[in-house]
């Protein structure tokens, strides 16, 4: 019983991290059809932003305030990744709309440069971010089943981010403009929407969410320049599995991959578990080539 419960919690925890990473991708890949391989590096930027915030608190503020650095770090990570996203969109991505494979290669080049930049600034070795003390320890569900607060916090953060995104996309004017542009660019442009601005904003929001993911990852362990590459492919698999264009698909995709990953790793070994998950994804795509939640339309291709 304890084993089952803690495995389920583990699975949920992995799913929540995957989801947080994939949410940004669901926007840039799902809505804009841009394959942003630098997404992992935006996560890294968010993580280092948290690291820097922590250091600033340490150096300039009284120790009693240190525990609250994390509350500030979340918006700071979002903002820095958001701004970087804006720059990236304006300088590179906008030349690559409609060429997804090229966007993949070019952004991979950006990823390389960002990684190297991080190595130059912060050094190649991993750095540790000290989590606030109020996230230490965990909730004891029963003997042998402890749910760490850090992981619970991440799950909560994902839910809040998800809600915010949902409200933004489906309930705000800006979100309506965004959906209009993604669904029918020409028409939206005729109606007086600045598609350029919407593209830039959409991409930047996707990047900003990556920043939040990076901030959350500092709770899980030390961070380094290659932080993003560990997660990026898994996150892309989530979007592919979930189907493009709908948030629900991404949520189910992340939960599915996270749960099965935990399950298979528990049954076999970490490396075989990954193979099995991959086989399952390919098998699943036999049944639904367009992913779980696919938008069907008359225009094929």
């Amino acid at each position, binding site marked *: 019983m304890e084993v089952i419960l803690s495995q389920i919690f583990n699975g949920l925890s992995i799913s929540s991290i995957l989801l947080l990473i994939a949410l940004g991708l669901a926007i840039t890949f799902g809505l804009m059809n841009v394959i942003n391989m630098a997404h992992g590096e935006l996560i890294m930027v968010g993580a280092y932003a948290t690291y820097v915030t922590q250091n600033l608190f340490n150096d300039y503020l009284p120790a009693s305030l240190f525990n609250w650095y994390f509350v500030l770090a979340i918006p700071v990570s979002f903002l820095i990744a958001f701004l970087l996203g804006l720059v990236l969109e304006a300088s590179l991505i906008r030349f690559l709309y409609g060429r997804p494979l090229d966007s993949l*290669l070019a952004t991979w080049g950006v990823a390389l440069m960002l990684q190297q930049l991080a190595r130059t600034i912060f050094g190649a070795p991993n750095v540790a971010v000290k989590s606030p003390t109020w996230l230490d320890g965990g909730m004891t569900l029963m003997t042998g089943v402890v749910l760490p607060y850090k992981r619970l916090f991440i799950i909560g953060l994902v839910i809040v981010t998800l809600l915010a995104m949902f409200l933004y996309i489906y309930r705000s004017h800006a979100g309506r403009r965004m959906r209009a542009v993604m669904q029918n660019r020409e028409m939206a442009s005729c109606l007086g929407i600045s598609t350029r601005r919407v593209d830039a904003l959409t991409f930047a929001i996707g990047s900003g969410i990556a920043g939040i993911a990076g901030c959350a990852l500092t709770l899980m362990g030390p961070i380094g320049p290659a932080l993003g590459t560990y997660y990026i492919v898994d996150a892309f698999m989530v979007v592919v599995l979930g189907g493009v264009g709908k948030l629900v698909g991404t949520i189910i995709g992340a939960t599915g991959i996270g749960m099965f990953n935990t399950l298979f790793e528990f049954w076999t070994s970490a490396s075989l578990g990954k193979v099995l998950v991959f086989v399952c994804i390919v098998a699943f795509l036999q049944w639904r080539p367009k992913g779980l939640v696919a938008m069907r339309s008359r225009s094929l291709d």
Partner: protein
Amino acid sequence: MQLKRLTPQRLYILIGYAVAATALFCAPLYLSDFRLNLLAKFLAFAIVALGLDLIWGYTGILSLGHGVFFGLGAYAMGMYLKLEASGTSLPDFMGWSGIKALPWFWKPFESFAFAAAAGILLPALLALGLGYFTFRNRIKGVYFTILTQALVIITTTLIIGQQAFTGGTNGLTGFRTIFGESLGSADTKRMLYWVTAAALLGAFVLCRFLVKSRFGRVLRAIRDGENRARFIGYNPAIYQMLVFSISAGLAGLAGMLFVFHVGIISPSTMAIVPSIEMVLWVAIGGRGTLIGAALGAILLNYAKSEFSASYPDAWLFFLGALFVVVVVFLPKGAVGLFGKLKIPQRRQSKHEQEPIGHSAV
């Protein structure tokens, strides 16, 4: 067709090929042993680039998984060399992991012929299998690309995780001889260089035959409009599977040759970064031209060996910037740039980009 006549232009091209081939085979005369060894490695990479160009440049399918195929070939040959180096005892890393007897799947690799065949067939069959489960269901474009990248991750994780059978992170190394000849001797190295040069030439001829045949025209037709090709009566999935498989086989062949020259194969050689670097070789040389792809591989690796040792940081910046510049400004690579100067009407139309999410037919 009307191309059969020997126009002056064709004559120049033929002379160019002849000069290049001569220079290639005479390289041992004018290069030091060290440089020759480097060149041999680059030639092996050029074989990968040719295969990658078949699937990407000519068929429009981007694979980020060629590191796996390359690695499988390298591991197949590495297993043979390892067994030969170990003689009657077990390979050293197996002993460290407490394995008592040679695992069954290692046994056949005692034979060189088996290892050489497996080095090409294993990657080709893996590609055929992956292609069967993707192209048939029209999983293509970025979806396919991401799946190939996932293939890289799981393969490297698997090899690292199964340390007792694969040598783990360290990979396979400590090779001594091939057919009883020392791998380190200058004579053997020269011989292996010739073998590699001949393999590259063979791969080039094979690829050229493929792309110049009607088969090659169907490939380009599939790249231009997969659905249209389907409504003419071609089954794109079969073509894509076959090309992907040939391409993987070539990468496997290159991997085998790589092991001879470098003497080590480890998961880091087949990881995500090397896999995507292979794509850059083709992109920079010019996708859709065989000679461009091969030259791209050789030149970029030459530049890498010159710069990366002395300026490792600057090299990664340079590599990243190169990706961006080539993709945004030089979609046809160096050869395209060269061609653009001569033949202005050959501007790449936007039709060549694979339209995803937009209706094409």
